[in-house]
């Protein structure tokens, strides 16, 4: 049989692409593309932060309590919220909308807990004197090198910008999930799955913010220069 003769049925049957080349709806594909672009936003911010850090004397001021304890509990909250979200999507796929709503509300609870803990943690640092373009005076003294080079005041700018943008994502995610929970019976399963995608993405970003911002800035006593 010639290729032309088979052309009538070839594309849809063998490729199985047809109208759904990715086998996902256009909304879900849209959310994936948004997630890719937002990943690049956070990548650019984190690489910019690393750039500044590598080219400056950088303070490593975070004590075990409150900074590391708070950020670890916050990480636990976000990881658990991802688990409850995936339970919600799983329940929704079985058609159990009431159960899906309960799990989504649990997800919102963990998300709000994250924001509250993060604001308390911000408050500690602001009280200590950290500002976007100033370091607390005792940090400057502690982290000035033996050559007399003071630490970069941009620590606050990178810290507040990156954690602030992430917190904004958590907050919008909580509002988004609240709308989904309220309308759960009217929404299709795929719409609930899409809201889950966004929420897991917020969790995923924190998996990079937490080690790069918090773990890499732990005060371990010996103050290295660059």
């Amino acid at each position, binding site marked *: 049989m010639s290729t032309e003769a088979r052309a009538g049925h070839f594309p849809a049957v063998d490729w199985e692409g047809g109208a759904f080349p990715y086998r996902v709806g256009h909304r879900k594909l849209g959310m994936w593309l948004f997630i*890719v672009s937002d990943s690049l936003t956070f*990548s650019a911010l984190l690489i910019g932060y690393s750039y500044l850090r590598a080219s400056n004397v950088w303070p490593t001021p975070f004590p075990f309590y409150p900074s590391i304890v708070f950020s670890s509990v916050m990480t636990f909250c976000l990881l658990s919220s991802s688990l409850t979200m995936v339970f919600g999507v799983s329940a929704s796929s079985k058609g159990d909308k009431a159960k899906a709503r309960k799990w989504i509300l649990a997800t919102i609870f963990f998300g709000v807990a994250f924001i509250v803990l993060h604001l308390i943690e911000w408050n500690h640092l602001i009280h200590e004197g950290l500002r976007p373009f100033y370091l607390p005076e005792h940090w400057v003294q502690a982290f000035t090198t033996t050559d007399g080079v003071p630490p970069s005041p941009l620590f606050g700018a990178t810290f507040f910008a990156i954690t602030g943008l992430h917190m904004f994502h958590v907050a919008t995610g909580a509002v988004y999930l609240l709308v989904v929970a309220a309308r759960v019976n009217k929404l299709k399963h795929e719409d609930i*799955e899409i809201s889950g995608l966004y929420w897991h993405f917020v969790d995923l970003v924190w998996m990079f913010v937490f080690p790069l911002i918090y773990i890499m800035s732990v005060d371990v006593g010996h103050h290295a220069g660059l």
Partner: protein
Amino acid sequence: MTAHAHVEEHFAGSNKLFISIWGWLVALTLIEIFLAYKPMPIHLMLIVLLGLSIIKAALIVAYFMHLKFERLSLILTIVPMLVVCIMLLFVFFPDSFRSAGLRYKFKENPPVAPAPVEEP
């Protein structure tokens, strides 16, 4: 049966699987916190932490975001372009070492300029 025109409703993966993924994520986080207090060179620390983060991100994307169970065409559309774009963002990075060299030149000649100059 119009399988090719049907959007998959089934959500693969049991709750047991998701709990074990969550357990792995928590365990890897605890390792990160432990490493924070292990004295080691900053470059090694960065590599280990980023390695752990990439594993955690892959677990979240594959299982929680369900990408492992999606079509290969979707995975190939999303993942490689993201990796390439992030690699391209690093193009500027070597300049940070250069600017550090410019800014702190006196490090090579330590006794030249102590910062607080006091007039007697």
